[in-house]
């Protein structure tokens, strides 16, 4: 791991979300979303990712319980 790297832990409630047509957000789509916002500061990064999933949902909320834990390497050695 290097300085600035992040690790994101999450339960499946973060991506098992359906839109109005019944389409699942999916883990792959979450991966794409994470990559899109990776350059943002940590707080904004997580806010954007979670908000994108919420906006995808038909009810603009999560169907399942969600837990997300983010870590960022501040320094090594």
């Amino acid at each position, binding site marked *: *791991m*290097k300085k*600035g790297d992040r*690790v994101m832990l*999450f339960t499946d409630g973060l991506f098992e979300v359906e839109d109005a047509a019944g389409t699942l957000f999916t883990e792959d789509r979450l*991966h794409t979303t994470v990559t899109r916002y990776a*350059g943002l500061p940590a707080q904004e990064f997580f806010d954007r990712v979670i908000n994108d999933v919420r906006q995808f949902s038909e009810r603009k909320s999560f169907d399942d319980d969600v837990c997300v834990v983010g*870590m960022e390497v501040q320094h090594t050695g």
Partner: protein
Amino acid sequence: MPVFRQVNRALAVILKQADTTMFATCFYVVADVERAQLRFANVGHPSALHIQHGNGAAHKLQGNGPPDRPWEFSPPPVMSRQAVR
């Protein structure tokens, strides 16, 4: 006693008494900042993501081995672990 064995035993007591189907997952991480290493064990969680600074590439943290102890649950959960540098 290893952490996961303790957690497993404690959870087994609760789940055996439960009168309904319950799900439990666990992700255990040890961050070694001196060596810049992450060691983890994943029990039933989606793969965590390692997001690299600079290029923004995201990779799944996937394990490389099964648990070394039998589990009291049935069916046993899948556990994996890996060191990330």
